[in-house]
């Protein structure tokens, strides 16, 4: 009786493991030939100030998809260098442009908001990349930027940089949930 129970329990455990194992494969899912081109997120707000009663942030389900996929984040890392994001933001520490690895976000740190910032450009130097970078690549860059402050999926974030880098592996960065930028709000700017 007890032997049969043990055997059954072991079989159940193996079955459970077999069910869990394929989940790990989704980390690097690549959809290289999507039938429809990617599009921008809709209705992005950069601030929580709006008329009327408080409403939930509009959230795009694709955001989670990009943030949780190692291929997209790794591609984003490559484009970040190629398209010279590092020219101003350096490896995330900031320099000419603001730092991307802290919790301060002038125009919001949600992935849709970062998408909008890259696509539309922002005052004081951030150029607009809409039409210059295809939509899917902007999503990927936004996912990588989120990973710089530990906000992308830890399991999907790359554990090594493509080149020599002054920051720790992105998968080791502590999560810094996005906040507004207190310095900017004090100065009354944005």
């Amino acid at each position, binding site marked *: 009786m007890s032997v049969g129970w043990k055997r059954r329990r072991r079989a159940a455990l193996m079955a459970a493991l077999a069910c869990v194992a394929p989940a790990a494969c989704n980390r690097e899912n*690549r959809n*290289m*030939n999507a039938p429809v*081109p990617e599009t921008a997120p809709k209705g992005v707000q950069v601030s929580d100030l709006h008329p009327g009663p408080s409403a939930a942030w509009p959230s795009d389900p694709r955001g989670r998809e990009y943030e949780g996929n190692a291929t997209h984040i790794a591609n984003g890392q*490559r484009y970040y260098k*190629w*398209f010279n994001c590092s020219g101003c933001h350096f490896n995330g520490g900031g320099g000419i442009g603001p730092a991307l690895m802290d919790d301060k976000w002038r125009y919001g740190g949600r992935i849709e908001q970062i998408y909008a910032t890259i696509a539309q450009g922002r005052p004081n130097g951030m150029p607009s990349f809409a*039409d*210059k*970078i*295809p*939509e*899917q*690549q902007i999503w990927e860059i936004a996912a990588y930027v989120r990973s710089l402050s530990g906000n992308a999926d830890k399991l999907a974030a790359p554990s090594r940089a*493509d080149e020599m880098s002054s920051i720790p592996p992105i998968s080791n960065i502590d999560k810094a949930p996005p906040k507004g930028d207190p310095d900017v709000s004090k100065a009354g700017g944005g």
Partner: protein
Amino acid sequence: MTRLPARLALAAAPGLVLCSCRGVQTMLDPAGDQARDIDVVWRAMLIVCGGMYLLVLGFLAWALWRARRPAPVGAPAIGHTPAERTLERSLSAWVALIVAGLVTLVTISFLVDRSLAEVGPQPLRVKVTAHQWWWQVDYDGSPQSQIVSTANELHLPLNRPAVVELQAHDVIHSFWAPNLAGKVDLIPGRTNYVAITPRRLGGFRGQCAEFCGLEHAKMAFDVTVESPEAFEAWRRSQLAEAQVPTNAQQVHGQQLFQTKACVMCHRIQGAEAGGSTGPDLTHLMSRRHIAAGALRNSRGDLAAWIADPQGVKPGTTMPRVPLTSDELNDVVAYLEMLK
């Protein structure tokens, strides 16, 4: 009835084997000093190892045939009997044969290795950088405005030694144009060199010979060996700026190229396009193939490639840029002008 295809295949097999001895991508048809030297090693190894193999098989067959004879009666012979002496002599000869074979191979491979490391006088210097999945080719020039940049294509003047400086941008690749030289790896953070002295005019094909990711198979390059005059003419034409669009369609195509995603990665000298992560397109139409040998360079294939790069080369870093069919047509009209 069913045996006919098998018979046909059997009849065609020697033909296929012979076919592989001639061609634009085979080490059995050397067209340069280095490939010829490697061919010498290859033939020496074939003769020595093949000869030894046949001898071993021959002796084995002989031993089997001998074993069928009845054993001699009487006490086994001990000491310096005639049979023992014969055996001793033949074993010594066998050892001598092995030593001679190995010494031949070592000597030949040493001499060839030395000759491969040698570069003739006044070599042409070319830098090849491997990317996933294409080849960037830069011809050394001084001053800097004399540097020729192209992609997936190597032009070499006949009889002039060339030194190809090999670097990798992302992962390990391997540079192999079998008709001209042996394969040499391109390793990130390291510079390797390969010398090529072409001795025959013609077009050859090279291929990445180290698995480098999804599109490793579609990472080829063309080599053109031409007369020194033709090479110089080619070099001059590559140094020129891109042609200026003349008709409205080409002008619109150029505008699209300069305002859409193309410009983020590609360079066209003479236009406002200075990206450096993708192939230089200044003289795109002078190349035989596009997408590192994946497609022929024709209007149709060019349009197919731009419309859906991931369909041609899944995983390539060239993205699909949303263009209407008219826009695509105009961009292709512009690119087609970049002779």
